[in-house]
């Protein structure tokens, strides 16, 4: 079972309507769409443009600027692995390598069984307990090989 609803223009229009009167509504709308659908598909752009009375180019520019927005829904779980300096200092590069090998994917990819999407993140603010990762909204620190394996098991279960 996916955490996300399947894309429909009707549902998207409804979500857009909930936020379109906020000041600077674009990001609140995009965040809300991604929360519901797991992504912001191209089809959402004209709907947003028309609701906010801005050009589709402007919406497209905004969507593509931010790392968070996906075009396709992710796998069942999203694993964000921190690749920034503090985690590098604490053995993060080896953890990254092991993680990719175990899942059989590169950063930004989803496993073939669509269980896990692996994404890079540049700092989770858990640098006191590096290396760190976030599985959906749950955080994990002090990742060594053993802890990573347990985390991957949880992610794939």
């Amino acid at each position: 079972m996916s955490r996300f609803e399947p894309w429909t223009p009707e549902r998207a229009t409804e979500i857009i309507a909930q936020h379109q009167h906020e000041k600077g509504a674009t990001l609140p709308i995009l965040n809300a769409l991604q929360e519901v659908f797991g992504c912001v598909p191209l089809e959402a752009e004209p709907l947003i443009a028309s609701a906010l009375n801005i050009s589709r180019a402007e919406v497209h520019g905004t969507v593509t600027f931010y790392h968070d927005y996906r075009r396709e829904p992710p796998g069942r779980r999203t694993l964000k692995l921190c690749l920034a300096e503090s985690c590098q200092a604490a053995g993060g590069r080896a953890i990254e390598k092991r993680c990719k090998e175990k899942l059989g994917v590169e950063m930004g990819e989803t496993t073939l069984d669509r269980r896990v999407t692996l994404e890079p993140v540049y700092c989770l603010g858990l640098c006191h307990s590096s290396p760190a990762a976030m599985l959906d909204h749950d955080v994990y620190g002090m990742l060594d090989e053993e802890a990573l394996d347990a985390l991957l098991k949880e992610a794939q279960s």
Partner: protein
Amino acid sequence: MTKIFISRDAGALCVGAEAVAKAFAKAAKGRGGLDVEIVRTGSRGMYWLEPLVEVETPQGRIGYGPVKAKDVSSLLDAGILEAKPHDKCIGVVDDYPWLKRQTRLTFARCGIIDPRSVKDYQAHEGYEGLKKAIEVGPEAIVETVITSGLRGRGGAGFPTGIKWRTVAQTPPQQKYIVCNADEGDSGTFADRMIMEGDPLVLIEGMTIAGIAVGATYGYIYLRSEYPHAFETLKIAIEEARKAGFLGSKLAGSKYDFDMEVRLGAGAYVCGEETSLLDSLEGKRGEVRAKPPLPAHIGLFGQPTVINNVLSLASVPIIMAKGGEFYRDFGMGKSRGTMPIQLAGNIKHGGLFETAFGISLGELVDDVGGGTFTGRPVRAVQVGGPLGAYFPRELFHTPFDYEAFAAADGLIGHGGVVVFDDTVDMAQQARFAMEFCAIESCGKCTPCRIGSARGVELVDKITAGEDREANLEVLEDLCDTMKFGSLCALGGFTPYPVMSALTHFPEDFGAQKKRLEAAE
């Protein structure tokens, strides 16, 4: 009734605090309903002791840590509710040496109170600053903040009071307070800790800023990587509103101020203030050319105060105790205290708030206890991905804006990332360029193109390809980026690159230093 305090800070959750809290609740029920109340707090910032469990006793709060869920039975069996000993016991937490040697002004309540309770906040001197601010009025608030010597804690170090005065002097109109909570620097987590552990101090600071400059609305721009802070902030804002500390005629005064929290979408550059404003307006987070300053033309074209979380969170105590009280801490032009964050390969990672002036060596070796791998410290990056790498030879440098600048570095947001002797500094220099290429907003040429070319150059140098010539080009490129970029992303990326080259040339294939060291 005995109170047990367990942190809900993400840093405690990431090592299992939730399971510990659940185990305590379950054990209390299982043992015939023990008379305990579990209070979820922020973190004290001693993360190697998390999950830290504190038990309220007549002697003070006694701490046990690090506690795992499976330890809970043995802790209760030993009689921790009656302050009996256990081998996880660290004694009275307030007397714990690592905490006791700090000067906690901004973080006075963090880890102690229930962050979601206005009542608890007020019981610990919360909203004293606002009370004073309402009493003295806008002009005196600005004067007090100027007197305190508070400088922007986000990294730039611009005097906060001067920024406020500039906005206060603009004609009356819609003005905004924006809090920059896009804490993206690796090695930093102080903003996150405040937002999760004492969010009301930030809300109070923004409210005081609003009164000072005549702004009636505020936004916290929070990075999307902080879902726990998002939840806590939303609850705290709602609680403050319910208690009458936000909204119209707040706290019985003549002032109006309200606020909301907005989420970013994973762009590091949005920590740059003008790019943050564009992002809040719903656009691509591209850097604006200055002038005009945000103080004159900021959010939605209106005069705007934009400050870092820590700057705003320092204001309540400055108002409550006076500008002179705060100014009397520190050294030179760096006044007050700095919440320093110890991170990376470090034994005692966490938050250490202290007056400016402590040396880098004392922080790393003494406070931090060296590396957790037990290997020698080789390099320390201070100030995030745009900060310089310092070798041990520079460990005498005092933590001070000017002293770090004089050593070709920066203190930035106060993050200190420790590396042991297995680090490859050429790889770190390459990463600095790579990160800049990933995160560049693309508006200015030196950053957009320079970062990608920088990665190539480091690769060529480490491969020994035309080494001398390419080193010269890399230095020239860094010079162009430093002086030609619009913002600190392109402008400061040369710091990690050049410092790695200067202090660790042997990692880039230079022979001389290694031979000397071997002799």
